[in-house]
């Protein structure tokens, strides 16, 4: 292959004519960055009905490789395979439940974004409710205690008189 420097020397030292010129042009063409030719997009879905059902299903399924994406969103190889599998099963007239069960059998409940209610998922389902009840309870207790404290702070007769005297003094001051 020509290096840039060699090519430069070649251009400077030789006449640009005949076969040599063609050879030069040929090598210059080789140095062009490779061109990406546009191509018509391959249709994603041969069957829009199947595709719609597949998308609805995969929206609620977790991609195990990129765990924060659904299989519908993920471009991972794993998700590609699962989508292909689901398309095939839809074409084979499997019900949605059968398809989801197929995946749960292989990958566990973890593929589901909607975990089923089971002893092991109780905390997941009811944890927030329990936390809410605890929060609400402590708020009520706090508010009750505060009310008692407010009621406790009532002024004695002497204090009231002093306060009144101070207020009056202030009024007089302002009038002057």
């Amino acid at each position, binding site marked *: 292959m020509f290096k840039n420097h060699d090519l430069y020397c070649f251009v400077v030292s030789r006449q640009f004519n005949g076969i040599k010129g063609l050879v030069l042009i040929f090598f210059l063409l080789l140095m062009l960055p490779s061109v990406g030719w546009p191509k018509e997009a391959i249709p994603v879905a041969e069957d829009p009905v199947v595709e719609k059902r597949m998308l609805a299903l995969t929206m609620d399924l977790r991609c*195990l*490789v990129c*765990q924060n994406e659904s299989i519908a969103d993920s471009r991972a*190889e*794993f998700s590609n*395979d*699962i989508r292909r*599998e689901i398309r095939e099963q839809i074409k084979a007239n499997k019900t949605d439940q059968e398809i989801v069960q197929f995946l*749960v*059998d*292989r*990958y*566990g*409940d*973890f593929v589901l974004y909607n975990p089923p209610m089971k002893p092991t998922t109780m905390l997941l389902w009811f944890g927030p409710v329990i936390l809410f009840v605890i929060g609400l309870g402590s708020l009520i207790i706090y508010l009750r205690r505060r009310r008692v404290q407010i009621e406790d702070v009532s002024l004695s007769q002497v204090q009231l008189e002093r306060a009144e005297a101070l207020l009056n003094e202030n009024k007089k001051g302002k009038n002057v």
Partner: protein
Amino acid sequence: MMRYLIPLFAFIVLAAFLLVGLTLNPRQVPSPLIDKPAPIFQLNHLHEPDRLMASKDNLGKVWLLNVWASWCVACRDEHPLLVQLANSGIVPIYGLNYKDERTTALQWLKRYGDPYTISIVDPDGRVGIDYGVYGVPETYVIDKKGIIRHKQIGPVTVDSLQNTIIPLIIELQKQA
């Protein structure tokens, strides 16, 4: 006193949860296939593409199924261990070449050594889905009755071999 102890207690509980969370691996999804029959398959050999191997051929012996691919970087890490294990003669290892090119797979085995009794190919990852494969390498311990007893997700390590896999194999080999 209480008003200082309650937040402290809450903090300790939260810290304990977070600390446990740090030691967990979110990629380690427990397989629902443990203690279930290994999914049956019939696949072509890698070395002799016109020969078939069926999973039922291995009934009556304890065997390892190692899912690997030449594009998988972590497979290279575990490979010397697999070669050692195969040389020790403790257990036959069967390789499932997952979503790979035949020629590169063969080159890879030539370069890094071939620990597999038989290598079989799963070019489009269908058997992989049946086995719940989502991250190569994965290794399954399958007992004499064809039941999956253990699944190692990610590369096998000296630690996992010594403490889990080999003791389990020896235990399983004693069973009728």
